[in-house]
Structures are given as C-alpha cells and as structure tokens.
C-alpha cells in the first residue's frame, strides 16, 4: 500500500498574520454590549469572533460567539501580580485552529473585571503571542454615572487606567459642563487614551477596531493631554498618572536597572507604564511599555533630523511618589 505523496504548498502560505484582539471593558450598564452589537451589525464585511462572559447582559448578534468563564490565575513565576486569563489562552489558541482567517477577535469582559489579567495574557503566553496581538483596550464609560462609579468601585478607575480608547457614552444625558467635569476626572487617571464622546454607543467602527495601540512603534503617539497645573491632590488609593520628560540622553544600563527594580518593587501599584527614550549615542528611539511587572521594549523608528530628542515616561498607578519617580528617572541620564 502506498501512493504518491501529494505536494504541500510552501511554508510561507501557511503563515497567518496574528489576529488583532480588541478588549472591551466598562462598568455594568455603560453601554458595552450595545457598542459590541453596533460593531458586529455594521455592514463591514469583516469576520469577527466574539468572546463574551457567561453573565452577559444582552444577546450578542454574531455567528461566532464563545462563552467564557473569566478564569484568572497567578503564574508560578514568582511574580504575585502576574495574573492571566486561562480561558482566553484556551479560546484564542483554539479560534485560530478553525478554518478561515478572522479579521478580529473582540473580548468583552464583565463590568467588574480587572483588565490587567487580560492584558497580561498577551505578554505571557507563547501560543497567544504567536496567534494573536492585543490591538487595544477599549473602555466604555457612562458620562452620567461615571463619577458615582469611581467613588464606589475600584474597577471603574482600573478600566479607565488601562484604556487605549475611552468611549464616553450617554452624552445625551448630561449637560456640556457635566461632560467636561467627567472628562477632566478621566484625564487625571489616564492622560494618553484617546477619548470619544458618544450617544447610545454610536462610534465609527474604525475608531474602535484596528487601532494597533499596543504596538511599541505607536507608544505615546498621542501626546498625553495633561490639565494645566499640577495634579490635584489625590488620595493614596486613587489611580493617578504622572509623566516626566528630560532633554538629557539616557544611559540604557542605568535605565534598565532603575525600571527593573521599580517594576519589581512597585509593579503592583503601577498599572501601566509607557516610555519613549533617547539613548546616548543611538539614533533610534527606544519604546517601552509595561503592564504591572511585565515589561516589553524595543528600538523603533529613528529620531527625525532636527527633532528634539526628549525622553518621556508616563506612569498610571496608585500611591505614586512624584519626587522619587522624578529623581529616579533623571538619574538615568548618561
């Protein structure tokens, strides 16, 4: 028994580009599922898979919906805040085994979910890294109720802190002055996320999908929008953001030593960190980001001729010591 072996197409034809994954967070009732259904029903001709949690508020209108238990576990790597979503590892690895390329995967989290384990899953698991890439964390916030949610739950602030895009929804229910107050509060927590105001979750699809916000090359592409003046004094437990800038070139070894130690000791309080660094004697910009203790960094595009080579770092977290962080960063100068 034998037959000629059929040829296989070359290896390159089997390489699938990583599927972009959009994570949709937001407090209960903010309009997450409405936004999700808008994305799915818009006539875009794209094929999405949707991962929802089992306590979803509304039905989701899509061919390919997977029901997930949000199962978080701690990695046994000695890092106590390195929690990941085991269910996502399984589902994302499984979705790419299906026939046909997906245009995207949308993961909807429960209202009470901490986004950190979702984000960390994309940094930690080899299979997930090979098959997918984190496109953006999109947080839907309810303009009418956000301030109340921020006062009574820690998750509401965490979801804003992690966001690359914040959809400030239900604008029809607030006055322009109220909206500005909510936006100002959001900016104390997260200055770099793009913010879109909407009514009834009406947001153009391309604003939400395909943002590529986790690409190191695009870090801090949007200048953080800081409010004038110093940050308002916040309670230790409140999430705030700090940013520092220096004209002096950075010594890579000093920076690595400082940031490694900082993330190792303070990583639980540091939700997200992003930086663009001008290393001494290096024409390329070095981009850096971290989710809690998990960091990723690489050289990206060169500085433009004549461009001011400013190094910048932004922290979002709790209990941040501004003078100490500033001294630490400035001490990294070459």
């Amino acid at each position, binding site marked *: *028994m034998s037959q000629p072996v059929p040829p296989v197409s070359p290896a390159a034809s089997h390489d699938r580009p990583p599927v972009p994954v959009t994570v949709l967070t937001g407090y209960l009732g903010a309009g997450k599922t409405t936004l999700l259904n808008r994305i799915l029903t818009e006539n875009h001709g794209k094929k999405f898979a949707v991962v929802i949690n089992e306590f979803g508020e509304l039905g989701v209108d899509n061919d*390919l919906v997977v029901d997930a*238990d949000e199962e978080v*576990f701690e*990695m*046994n790597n000695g890092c106590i805040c390195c929690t990941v979503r*085991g269910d996502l590892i399984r589902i994302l690895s499984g979705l790419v*085994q*299906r026939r046909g390329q997906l245009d995207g995967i949308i993961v909807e989290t429960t209202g009470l979910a901490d986004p950190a384990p979702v984000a960390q899953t994309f940094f930690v698991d*080899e299979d997930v890294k090979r098959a997918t890439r984190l496109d953006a964390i999109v947080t839907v916030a309810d303009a009418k109720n956000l301030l109340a949610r921020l006062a009574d739950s820690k998750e509401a602030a965490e979801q804003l802190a992690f966001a690359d895009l914040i959809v400030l929804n239900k604008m029809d229910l607030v006055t322009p002055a109220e909206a500005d107050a909510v936006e100002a509060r959001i900016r104390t927590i997260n200055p770099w996320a793009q913010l879109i105001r909407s009514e009834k979750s009406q947001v153009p699809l391309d604003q939400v999908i395909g943002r590529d916000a986790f690409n190191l090359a695009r870090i801090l592409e949007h200048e953080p929008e800081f409010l004038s003046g110093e940050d308002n004094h916040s309670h230790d437990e409140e999430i705030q953001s700090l940013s520092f800038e220096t004209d002096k070139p950075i010594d890579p070894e000093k920076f690595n030593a400082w940031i490694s130690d900082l993330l190792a000791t303070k990583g639980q309080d540091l939700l997200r960190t992003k930086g663009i660094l001008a290393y001494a004697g290096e024409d390329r910009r070095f981009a850096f980001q971290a989710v809690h203790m998990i960091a990723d960094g690489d050289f990206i595009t060169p500085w433009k001729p004549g461009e001011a080579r400013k190094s910048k770092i932004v922290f979002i977290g709790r209990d941040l010591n501004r003078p100490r962080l500033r001294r630490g960063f400035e001490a990294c100068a070459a």
Partner: protein
Amino acid sequence: MSTSLNEADALLQTRGVSRNLEAWVMGAAFCRTGGTAAFALGDGSLHIAEVAAPEAEWQGIAAHEGSTRALVADCADGYLTGGDDGRLLRTAPDGTGTELGSYGAMKWVENLAAHPAGVRLAAIGRAVHVLDGKGRLLKSLAHPSTVTGVALDGKGKRIVASHYNGASLWYVAAKEDKPRLLEWKGSHIGVAIHPDGTHVVTAMQEASLHGWRLEDGQHMRMSGYPGKTRSMGFTQSGRFLATAGSEAVVLWPFFGGGPMGKAPTELAGGDEALVSRVACHPKHEVVAAGFNDGLVLMVEVTSGKVVPVAAPGRGPISALAWNPSGTHLAFGTEWGFCGVVNLSRQ
C-alpha cells in the same frame, strides 16, 4: 528526481498513503477494531480511511459546525468527536453519525475519553459528563474551574480531570460522587493517569509537569521544558511516561522509585524542532514522535534506535496515533496534511 524522496521520508513514500486536507488536523485515531483510521479537522470535518485499503477514497463527513475540537476511538467501534458547536457526536465505522449530547452552541466540547468497558467522558466547561456505552448519561461531575483534560485508568474505573490548582479523581461507579482533589497551585492544561492507576501527571502552563503518587500523595515536579507539554502518554509496560514539549522525546521512569529523584531519558533529540506529539506503541516499548517542523519518527526506548517515518516540511505535527495492533501509524499536521503508514512486516 524528487527532492522530497530522501531517507527521512522513505517510509511515508514507500509504505504510506497521504492526503492534503487543508485544515488544521485536530486529532487522529484508529477505531478499536483497527479497521479504520480517522482524522478530525479544524473545519469541522471528520475523514475516515480504510486501513486495509487506505489508497481508496477517504470518507469525508461534515461532523461539526465550526471546528472539530477532539477525537477519540469510541468504546467498541467508531469514533467520538467534540466540536465548538457544543455537540458530542458518535460516528459509526460506516460514517453514520449519532448525537450523544448537545451542550449549547457557545460551549466547546474539547476533551474526550472512552474505554472499552463502556465509559465515555466529555468535558464541557467545568463539568465532566459520564456516559455509558449506550449513550446514557450516568452522571455529571462538577469541578471548581474549566476542565482542561480528562483520562481514564487502564480498567476504565477511575476518572481524572485537570483544572486550575490541580486535578480531581473520581470513580465511574461511585454511588456518592466525592472527588479526591490533587492540589497544586497554578493552571494545569492536560492530564495522564498511569494505566495501573498509581500516579497522575498533569502538564502545566509554565512548561513543566506536576505529578502525584496516589498511595501517599507524594508530589513530583518535572521541569525544564522549553515549550508546553501538549501530548504525553505511558508506554505499554507503564514503565515510562513519554512527553512532548522539548527538543527530544523526554521519558520519565515510573519504576525503581521513580520518577522522584531520577533523571529522564531523552531520545531522538538533536535538532532545534520541538516534539509536538507523542504516541506510545500498544505492544512494544516504542514511541512515535511528531515535531513542530513536520518530522515524524519512531524511537525504541531501550536502544534509543530511531527510525524516521516522514520528513519535515508539511507543517507542525498536531495529531499522531497507533492502531490497536501497532502495525499502522497515523499523523496529521497544522497545515492539513494527513498520512497513514503501514509499518507491519512485509
């Protein structure tokens, strides 16, 4: 003439039949009568080849909407498959399908086991459903988190299921279902039980194995794998656990007090490619291994002698199985290449 006809490919070229089915091969199995081989694919299909005449057309069956996620030989003949359409399906040797369970369109039926004694297991979410040979639901066993692997011991009496923070041991025939919980913190992603029911071993997220000796609950930690172990099995004598996840076939000794304090045997290594699947021969101390570069080989445990079966280049090996008498080997790849090779004396 043909550049692919090299030494490593000789057995496939001269004693094999293969097809290019163009979807991720999720599983391969021979039915217990040995009459057919089956391949389950990521497009939801099941393909069945006659072992006596594999060159004849293979029967293609649209088994599941979406993807077929798991395939095992059923208790007596035919196959069980699970899909991401939430269905558990039995397919008879002639291709006739019978739905044994439907658990919801958004649920995946990812882990199956069956035993000739008339036991079938299907894990869906946190539950393991236990069915008898007639398809009747005997019981549903609840776990603290999603079940990532199920196995039955050699007699088909004990069930083990892996999940977060360990594994649970159950008896098929227990009047009162209270599991013995084998605890170890972390995410366990697959499980094997020694055929004699003496040890349980799980694969872990952190690319290591964890095990328990059941008589005294003694823990075992087996680490050093460069990748996750997605495939493992005991050799027919029960002396070794063969595991994937490294550049070599890593075999842990389960005799002479092992594996505690014993070094594993590493066979058929040398290249950079990782072993992605292993399948232990049903009669001899021989292990078939598939690598993530597409290489398939057999290795004899005692001598370490290696015999190549199929050359690299057709996609990472994602499925591998022996027939019950150990004369035929079936393999499949992530690219959809499927082969059946006749290794009997001719």
